[in-house]
């Protein structure tokens, strides 16, 4: 049971960081539906660099760097060119999915490095994830930088008039967001499951995207949701730990996805919106073009 809880928290960490990165970008008004693609890049490049150099540190740095680069690309398309953000995000997802399948293929197999040591029984990244949540909450709600990020996400024209550089603020958010997505991917391939095979994420990025909608753009609710989904994911992989022989293991694998659909549906009902309020950033998905 302890083993199950530990693995669940490990999985939650990846959801937490991936979803938090998306939340950060969305708070500045930029939607990136290609979380999965950025994560695949971070995971694959991180894995390749770590295995080649034998250094975890370099692997993580490479994962973060490629994530930042992809974030920059998304920013260029979405902020500078002002193109449709959904199309851009789809492009990034398919680019990640297609290209990492090709470049990572020669690295198929286990990482073959000594595992990253635990801290009081848990992966060190769990603590980093929780710390990032607290930092994000603090920055977003208590600092002037956070106010700037939120205001460009709510009403960029008003923000611009009050002296905030919308373009620069959005770029900052989107690049940081990409770096965190790359980091989340690298945690998957270097710590959670250090074996490379093609398209191994199997939907983590899309669940992370859904988590942002569940969280109502609040980092603490996001953390709760991530822990729930990390547990569900782990349960779907090892159902025998909790409920022996109830369903086929394949059917268990559908459970996190089914629950995502169900929760997303609940979230979008009018009852829910009226009761909990929709905290969706007002300018989400809209390019800002200065006239």
């Amino acid at each position, binding site marked *: 049971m302890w083993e199950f809880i530990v693995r669940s928290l490990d999985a939650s960490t990846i959801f937490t960081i991936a979803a938090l990165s998306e939340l950060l970008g969305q708070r500045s008004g930029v939607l990136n539906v290609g979380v999965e693609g950025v994560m695949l890049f971070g995971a694959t490049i991180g894995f390749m660099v770590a295995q080649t150099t034998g250094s975890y540190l370099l692997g993580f740095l490479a994962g973060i760097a490629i994530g930042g680069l992809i974030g920059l690309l998304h920013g260029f398309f979405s902020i500078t060119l002002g193109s449709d953000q959904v199309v851009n995000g789809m492009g990034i997802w398919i680019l990640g999915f297609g290209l990492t399948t090709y470049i990572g293929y020669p690295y198929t197999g286990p990482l073959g490095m000594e595992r990253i040591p635990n801290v009081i029984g848990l992966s060190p990244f769990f603590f980093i994830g929780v710390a990032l949540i607290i930092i994000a909450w603090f920055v977003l709600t208590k600092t002037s930088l956070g106010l700037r990020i939120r205001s460009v996400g709510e009403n960029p024209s008003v923000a611009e008039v009050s002296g905030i550089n919308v373009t620069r603020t959005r770029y900052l958010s989107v690049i940081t967001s990409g770096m965190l997505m790359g980091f989340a991917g690298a945690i998957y391939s270097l710590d959670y499951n250090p074996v490379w095979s093609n398209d191994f994420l199997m939907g983590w990025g899309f669940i992370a995207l859904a988590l942002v909608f569940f969280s109502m753009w609040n980092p603490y609710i996001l953390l709760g949701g991530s822990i729930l989904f990390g547990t569900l994911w782990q349960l779907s992989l090892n159902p025998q730990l909790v409920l022996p022989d109830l369903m086929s293991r394949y059917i268990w694998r559908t459970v996190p996805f089914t629950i995502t659909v169900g929760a997303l549906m609940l979230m*979008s009902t009018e009852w829910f919106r009226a009761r909990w309020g929709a905290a969706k950033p007002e300018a989400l998905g809209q390019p800002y073009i200065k006239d």
Partner: protein
Amino acid sequence: MKLGSFEVKLEKRVSLPGWEATLISLLAILVALVVFSYIFVRAGVNPLTGYKEIFSYAFMSSFGLPLTINRFIFLLLCTYAFIIPIRAGLWNIGMAGQLYAGALSAFAVAFAFGAKTSQNAVLPPGLVIPLMIAAAILGGAVVGAIAGFLKGRFNTNEIVVTMMLNFITYWIVARLIKEGGLFMGASGEGDGFKIPESIYAPLVKNVPFTVFIALGLAMLLYFLFAKTKIGYQIKAYGKSPSAAKYAGISPYKIPLLVFIMGGLIAGLAGYHYFAAVPGVYKITKNYGDFGDLAFYGIICGLISQGDALAAIPIALLFGGLTNGGRFAQGKLKLGFGIDYALLGVLMITLVAFQFFYRYKIVVVRTKKETSDVGIHS
């Protein structure tokens, strides 16, 4: 930007003539192929040789051409499954899930007629084949309808929902064809059961008859969007759902409708690949690869700008490229997954090019530099 006495600037397009859109699309494909040649260079192969290998296998060889045509039919159906919702501004990235459901439903019919128990069973093709197709359509439509209903009724994000449905159906297929599942094949190696020869889909010159369905749909969709009220309503919803509402177009009905239509076409794609392509006739253990291939439908749909007829040559091109790519990969030792890499490169090039659908580059002559005019002392 100034260049001498000329100024280069971007101008927002008011309208985009058809020929210019075509030109931009062709240019995007060309740029993607040039970028993609890096993969040949990396493997020490001259890109021209590489492309020659790909195209000659895909379109000239007697082995490659039938495979290209089968992929073309599949991709065209996947493209239509994407195009109909995108005309309403909605993203169907659930072609994979819908085609798995279509394939499962078609095989369920075959199963019900006892196709699993005897490989040599003589079943009435005139009855079983139409039923298999009907079931495939229904299966795809049901999975599509889930996303369409949730979008229309609750405004639930269709991208996440369709993607989740892809994974759900992916695992349901695994449940049914593996480890003692109902549709497991006799070999027990993870493939589904094979249908008896008596219900193989009819071939016309070695091409499955599904090609006529796909091309018929091309005409039908062209007509739907050019001439019918419902086509107009879909487009109006796509331009602005809220404005469409005031024009009396139901905001519930349109999402449901476009996803049902998309889903049923994807269901046909599932029937086509697993029950009509010569040499397959079963749900193969690598069915996930066909789900991945379905994502080319997104690219074909975007490049063709939602035009059902323009999608035909594009689907043919990509059918050939992916098929020839697989062949060249083996022959030229390019490493696994070049069809996936091409998918990625094409998509991102296209994303970059969408800018030019909205803006054009204009060069204007600025006033001649007048350095000779001044105050003479």
